């Protein structure tokens, strides 16, 4: 069994909209980019995992191979909601840990265009002829808007408001401050879909989507891709000094699902599994939250980021409102969170997200993040959550020398 797994190559494309390309084009570009960054080629890859949620049944990994190298290695096509990309990475990690591969490639890609609200409940409905019961709840019609909401902006709004109901000092303004921060951070990131700062008033006054989430507090849909090349300890020792110098250690890789809670009957829980994943990751890596130089967490909505401050133990219990009020997660604060701009401004092409956050943290640990570099960063954490629910947390560390 390999003791450690290392990131030796990584790249992402700027998130945005690429109407003249398809997912295979986007995946191919980042895969070749990551291989070049690692100074290697497909000929050395022993496993490939590809995450593309909306084309998960489409053999994306094999399509990718046909563009960049069809070598006969095992391919995993992975889907795990918004944790899809991170799950692809973890699939390669497991192959290396199992000793089946010493080098592998993980790619996350998605093309969403201007999709708007996700899921069938966001689309127009037909008028019924005669009511008939269907589905597991015996519904006679689609119940979105009739029995509350199950669409993402509202689900994550309700998750945030549930936190607000239990803790003083958390409200619309605290949630809005999260988006103010992430938009400001994105102005320094040339790979972000949007790179524009907004004042707190602009965030709060933008069109309301699902209170307390305004438009500027919701991640956009878009296209994008990211890739990582991973290798084992033993393999790393055989590689060029320059590759070794830039290698980033994966100190923890944890995947959880949501354990039973009574409120599952209303909507999926996004907190408990994040807490258990974070606790396991800190233990695996032997680091504590105060050791973290930067965190890329799953801010699909501003309300989500705020509750994850506590779920990831970045603040005291009940202290998420105070943490944002005192600018703790800003890039010059106690624990910089989403210095890339986060999902809210960097963008959230679903399959790419959980790979792109590894790209972001690894790039800082390598000291190659340009204008947005967190100086002297040595330890970082990534977090993604897929509603339903799946949570992946990775801890990355700069090589010792």
């Amino acid at each position, binding site marked *: 069994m390999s003791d450690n797994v290392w990131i030796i190559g990584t790249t992402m494309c700027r998130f945005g909209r690429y109407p003249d390309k398809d997912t295979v084009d986007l995946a191919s570009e980042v895969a070749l980019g990551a291989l070049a960054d690692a100074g290697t080629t497909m000929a050395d890859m022993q496993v490939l995992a590809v995450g593309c949620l909306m084309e998960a049944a489409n053999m994306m990994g094999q399509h990718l191979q046909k563009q960049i190298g069809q070598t006969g290695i095992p391919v995993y096509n992975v889907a795990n909601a918004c944790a899809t990309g991170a799950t692809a990475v973890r699939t390669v990690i497991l192959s290396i840990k199992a000793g089946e591969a010493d080098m592998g490639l993980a790619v996350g890609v998605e093309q969403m265009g201007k999709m708007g609200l996700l899921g069938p409940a966001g689309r127009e409905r037909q008028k019924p002829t005669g*009511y008939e019961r269907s589905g597991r709840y015996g519904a006679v019609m689609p119940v979105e808007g009739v029995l509350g*909401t199950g669409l993402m902006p509202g689900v994550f709004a309700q998750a945030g408001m549930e936190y607000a109901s239990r803790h003083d000092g958390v409200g619309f303004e605290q949630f809005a401050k999260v988006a103010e921060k992430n938009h400001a951070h994105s102005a320094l990131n040339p790979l972000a879909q949007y790179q524009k700062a907004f004042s707190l008033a602009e965030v709060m006054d933008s069109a309301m989507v699902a209170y307390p989430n305004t438009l500027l507090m919701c991640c956009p849909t878009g296209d994008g891709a990211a890739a990582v090349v991973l290798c084992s300890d033993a393999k790393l020792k055989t590689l060029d000094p320059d590759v070794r110098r830039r290698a980033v250690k994966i100190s923890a890789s944890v995947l959880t699902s949501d354990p039973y809670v009574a409120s599952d009957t209303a909507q999926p829980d996004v907190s408990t599994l994040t807490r258990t994943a974070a606790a396991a990751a800190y233990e695996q890596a032997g680091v504590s939250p105060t050791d973290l130089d930067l965190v890329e967490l799953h801010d699909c909505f501003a309300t989500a980021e705020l509750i994850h401050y506590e779920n990831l133990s970045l603040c005291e219990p009940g202290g998420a409102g105070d943490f944002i009020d005192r600018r703790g997660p800003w890039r010059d604060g106690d624990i910089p969170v989403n210095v890339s701009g986060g999902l809210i401004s960097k963008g959230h092409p679903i399959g790419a997200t959980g790979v792109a956050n590894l790209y972001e943290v690894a790039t800082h640990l390598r000291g190659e993040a340009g204008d947005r570099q967190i100086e002297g960063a040595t330890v970082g954490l990534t977090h993604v959550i897929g509603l339903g629910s799946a949570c992946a947390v990775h801890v990355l560390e700069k090589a010792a020398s």
Partner: protein
Amino acid sequence: MGEKAQMAVVDYLVLGDDPHLEANACRSCGALFFDRRNACARCGAVGFERRALATTGVVRSYTIIHRAAPNVPVPYVSTVVELDGGGVVKANLVDAGSDPDKIELGMKVRLTTFACGRDEEGTEAVAFGFTPA
């Protein structure tokens, strides 16, 4: 004109003189589910019984939806309600407006029903929601 036909919008809403929700309760640990289960998600036991739930509870969370699918009227308030005696359910908060300053987290609510559609045969679909108690 015969009696107007009504149908509950989902099968866990029981209509009649005393409208209420009904859940499948695990015989072993009491966990509640609104759909059918093969075994209990909480304890793994396989026996369930139908249980009528309370019609009163508290607002555990809410959101005010301003952007929705094309023919869903907005704004509306979606709420997560914790029922007295057990059960957590999502529904619309009705008769409470859509001003966040007037909706209180933790406020007491009670179940109500409302017509939510009519099919071409004249059958009325009836949904449940919650109203300030």
